[in-house]
């Protein structure tokens, strides 16, 4: 899959119309329209009927729009969601490759039926069981549609009989496995650090940033944001650190000079650090990601501009 920037996935309940209508104003890279947690059948059908319009709202700021269906009602929920503007679906509680293959075939069918280019709809695989964690490799490789995967930590707690506490991270192994297997498959792992994965807080911007940064430093490429307060922090934390850009550029310059002189081990002046191939590569990767993030920001800004001009 082509490299993409999706640092923040803002989760919005479809029935909360105000949140849906303002979802595009938070500068999220992605918006997930949530069809879960609805108790009555009436509300459920009302929610489904609102998806098409909700997509229109959610993508006004240039966000990639996803829908999170109920696992048990996936087919009906997905049918209500596949309309132009949709980027893909979130698969809740994936456990095996068969789960993903089934979603893949529903999406293929709907793409054909609704005049959407074949194969463009993506799948974010959410894992909420030991089975899913154990089978993560077959899940992320089951379909080229799978773009990201992450833990649904609270439901994982429930299914594993774990009571979440702030001072104990029960998912060090699970997160490590998700990051490694997902990245090995060239798919993006998403998640945040403990305890915000199980006990999210919304009022301390700096702490949100720190948690997201820790998530990035565990290997995640972005996070699901249960609240708009997370979006800006995630966008910053999951991008390369701005204060290191100069260092990365200098690293690349010094290394290429060294290589020209016939050495691939170059001291970085004023430090004990040696620049060799991996250090140079790391600088290159970070600078490239920085460019991609800047391009994503420009895309979103353009969408907003377009909004404003049509409104005016």
């Amino acid at each position, binding site marked *: 899959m082509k490299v993409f920037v999706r640092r923040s996935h803002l989760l919005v309940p479809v029935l909360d119309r105000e949140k849906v209508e303002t979802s595009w104003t938070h500068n999220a890279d992605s918006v997930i329209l949530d069809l879960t*947690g609805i108790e009555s059948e009436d509300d459920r059908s009302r929610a489904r009927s609102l998806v098409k319009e909700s997509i229109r709202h959610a993508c006004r700021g240039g966000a990639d729009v996803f829908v999170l269906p109920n696992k048990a009602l996936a087919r009906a929920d997905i049918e209500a969601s596949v309309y132009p503007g949709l980027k893909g679906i979130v698969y809740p509680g994936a456990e095996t490759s068969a789960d993903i293959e089934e979603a893949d075939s529903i999406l293929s069918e709907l793409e054909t039926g609704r005049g959407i280019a074949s194969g463009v709809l993506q799948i974010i695989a959410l894992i909420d069981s*030991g*089975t899913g964690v*154990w*089978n993560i490799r077959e899940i992320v490789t089951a379909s080229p549609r799978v773009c990201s995967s992450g833990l649904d930590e609270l439901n994982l707690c429930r*299914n594993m009989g774990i*009571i979440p506490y702030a001072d*104990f991270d029960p998912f060090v*192994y699970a997160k490590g496995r998700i990051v490694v297997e997902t990245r090995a498959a060239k798919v993006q792992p998403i998640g945040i650090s403990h305890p915000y994965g199980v006990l999210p807080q919304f009022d301390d911007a700096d702490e949100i940033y720190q948690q997201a940064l820790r998530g990035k430093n565990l290997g995640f490429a972005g996070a699901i944001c249960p609240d708009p307060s997370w979006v800006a922090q995630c966008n910053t934390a999951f991008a390369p650190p701005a204060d290191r850009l100069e260092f990365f550029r200098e690293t690349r310059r010094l290394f290429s000079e060294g290589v020209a002189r016939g050495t691939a081990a170059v001291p970085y002046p004023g430090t004990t650090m040696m620049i060799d191939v991996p250090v140079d590569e790391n600088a290159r990767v970070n600078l490239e990601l920085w460019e991609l993030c800047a391009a994503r920001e420009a895309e979103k800004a353009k969408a907003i501009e377009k909004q404003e001009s049509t409104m005016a």
Partner: protein
Amino acid sequence: MRGSVRRSWLIVPAHDNDRLAEAASSSADVVVLDLQDTVHDSRKHEARDNIRDAISDMRDAGSEVFVRVDIELIYADLVASVWRGLTGIVLPGVTNVEQVMDADSILTDLESQRGVVKPPPVGDVREADDPRGPEQALEIHLSLDTGRGNWDAQQLIKASNRVKSISLGRADLVMDLRGEPSGDLHQMEYLMQRLIVIANALNVEPVGAWWRATSRGLVAGYDDTLQAAIDGRMAGFRGGLCMRARQVKPLNTGYTPSADEVSHAEEVITREPTYSPMSGIASDLIAWSEECQNRNRSKSIVTAQRNQ
């Protein structure tokens, strides 16, 4: 597999009558009569001879009974162990599926020859001679002591339907994982969380506690054991193994939700919508707390009967 309440699994050398007596009054949810590590080769006969009586003594004391066998002496050990009142066996150091299948088939033969079935839960009125169902097969607990056993855990668990629970056993000793400056045992966080994920994936119960360097092969003192149980419950265990009768109480306590936790859970249920995972977690906690109370009650009923 969420079945019986088994917060404490006390391992006792089967040849040692003092330790057996201590175990009978320890209030352990499970007593594991040991024929393996804690029994010297010269004492194996004595230990095997004790098993049949010890099973009924522990049963009378309100504990479920397992026997830990020596995988190299499995036939003789199982012949000595499969008697009425036994719930299952602990298979330590298993490294290939044939060993599990072998244990399974010896158990099947002995069950058939001796008419032995897994007894009903302690304190349950149902008699053991009710028509036999698959749920009455004697259980196997896999103690995945070795690197090979842990790596192949999935295949080993699948090798027999009798496998209902797994643990790292004495992995710290068998794999020689020692303490780090942080107080953690080297690699134990990885190994414990991995075990819990695999158990959940294969629907068996993970048994263990969050032991740290002070545990020294399951013989920690009261406070360290209590902490290991509290942390173990946060990690997803619901009961742990131990080697000393004094550890039973802290394990039972640590694995039972505290009154504060229960009242907090009640608040969560009134506050959160029923579909929220938080509400589900809270109601599971309350249900577990009730099961623990029931287990305590049944234990005291059984011991009261014995004392009469």
